[in-house]
């Protein structure tokens, strides 16, 4: 870690308190050498309306995804992106964004696939920064290009592919979408274009724990005791479990992956980024509908 962690007491109880920073901590350290702030939003224009001083923009779709293959960029393009953003291999990166940090968590997860060591979330994201009345600027930084090494992505530990999920059935699965998406009800009226999969429902045996349960009204993460009540008591997760989380395209489940992995200390959590858009259209795999998780299918 290049820069000392935020010693805020509310983070101490988490397994990896070094993964979170408070708005106050960040505001005091803006433009510190060795620190780069990244904004990553669902709304692609939001950064242009004003952002944290010195922050660079990373767009999940145009920057992190390969333009042709449904996959992430490779090591070479990641190195180019990092260089453009002024990020070196040992830079402390703090990511924040809209929608309670969905895309910020997603970007953090992709940084982790490339083994970037020190990448943190701004607790509460854009909404909290704004609610606190902290400043934005319209000035766009011009980072000095860095020599970022070309590192191959490691998909083996925190990413699950569809075949991994098939093999995983029988172990804990967390579906982080809304209850309506989980049960398989229609979420849009007839005759309207509907984004997504051919079938509605969930992966059999998956527990429904919408991502939003992990955050308080101000967008900051809930204390550990409340997270325990939701994920351990509520969804039955236990120490040592291998867990897969999924949503629709992997952004909301990145958020839950962050919670389970860094806040609660489950050390074998994978994000299935193919998620429901893949599973719900996949030939010859089972789904379940209704409010119950459903049985693990026999093979």
């Amino acid at each position, binding site marked *: 870690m290049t820069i000392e962690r935020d010693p805020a007491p509310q983070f101490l109880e988490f397994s990896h308190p070094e993964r979170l920073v408070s708005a106050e901590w960040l505001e005091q350290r803006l433009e510190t050498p060795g620190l780069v702030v990244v904004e990553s939003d*669902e709304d692609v224009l*939001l950064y242009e309306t004003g952002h944290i001083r010195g922050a660079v923009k990373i767009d999940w779709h145009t920057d992190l995804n390969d333009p042709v293959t449904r996959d992430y960029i490779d090591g070479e393009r990641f190195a180019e992106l990092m260089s453009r953003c002024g990020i070196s291999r040992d830079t402390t990166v703090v990511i924040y964004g809209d929608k309670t940090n969905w895309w910020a968590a997603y970007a953090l997860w992709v940084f982790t696939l490339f083994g970037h060591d020190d990448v943190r979330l701004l607790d509460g994201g854009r909404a909290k920064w704004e609610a606190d009345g902290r400043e934005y600027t319209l000035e766009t930084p011009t980072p000095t290009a860095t020599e970022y090494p070309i590192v191959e992505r490691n998909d083996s530990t925190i990413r699950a592919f569809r075949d991994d999920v098939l093999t995983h059935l029988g172990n804990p699965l967390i579906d982080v979408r809304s209850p309506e998406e989980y049960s398989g009800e229609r979420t849009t009226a007839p005759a309207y*274009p509907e984004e997504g999969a051919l079938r509605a429902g969930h992966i059999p045996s998956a527990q429904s724990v919408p991502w939003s349960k992990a955050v308080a009204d101000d967008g900051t993460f809930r204390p550990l005791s409340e997270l325990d009540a939701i994920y351990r008591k509520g969804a039955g997760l236990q120490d040592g479990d291998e867990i897969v989380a999924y949503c629709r395209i992997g952004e909301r489940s990145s958020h839950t992956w962050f919670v389970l992995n860094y806040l609660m200390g489950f050390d074998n959590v994978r994000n299935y980024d193919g998620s429901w858009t893949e599973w719900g259209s996949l030939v010859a795999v089972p789904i379940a509908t209704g409010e119950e998780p459903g049985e693990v299918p026999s093979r």
Partner: protein
Amino acid sequence: MSEQQIPTQLAEIRDDFLELELKNRLQLLLEFANELPELPERYRDHPDLFERVEECQSPVFIFIEVDNDTVQMFATAPPEAPTTRGFASILAQGLSGLSTQEVLDLSDEYPQSLGLAKAVSPLRLRGMTGMLARAKRQIRLKSIT
């Protein structure tokens, strides 16, 4: 989409986008977002009249008024959703003043013609396609009753 089918004001908006480099197209979209017209007084207290556009991830609501066969489109979207505001603003400015038939004849592909797919991703443009579809649907409903 043939030239004749696109009313002048919509063709002008499209050409303005296409003349720009990719990066500046986003800036133009932001200008549209900032220009989204305020709701007229008579609609401000009537959220019930507005239809939520479910295809957009942000809360955007639209309402079509038809008077003497002339269309007026109104929309609201929060400042924290500038892309959605930009899409809504293009349609509110582009569709308002047209006849109902002109709007119904407009190709559903119009959002795709703005050259934004690379800048904001095809996934996001679906929100605008959804808005246009809902605008047409409201016009059809109003034409029946």
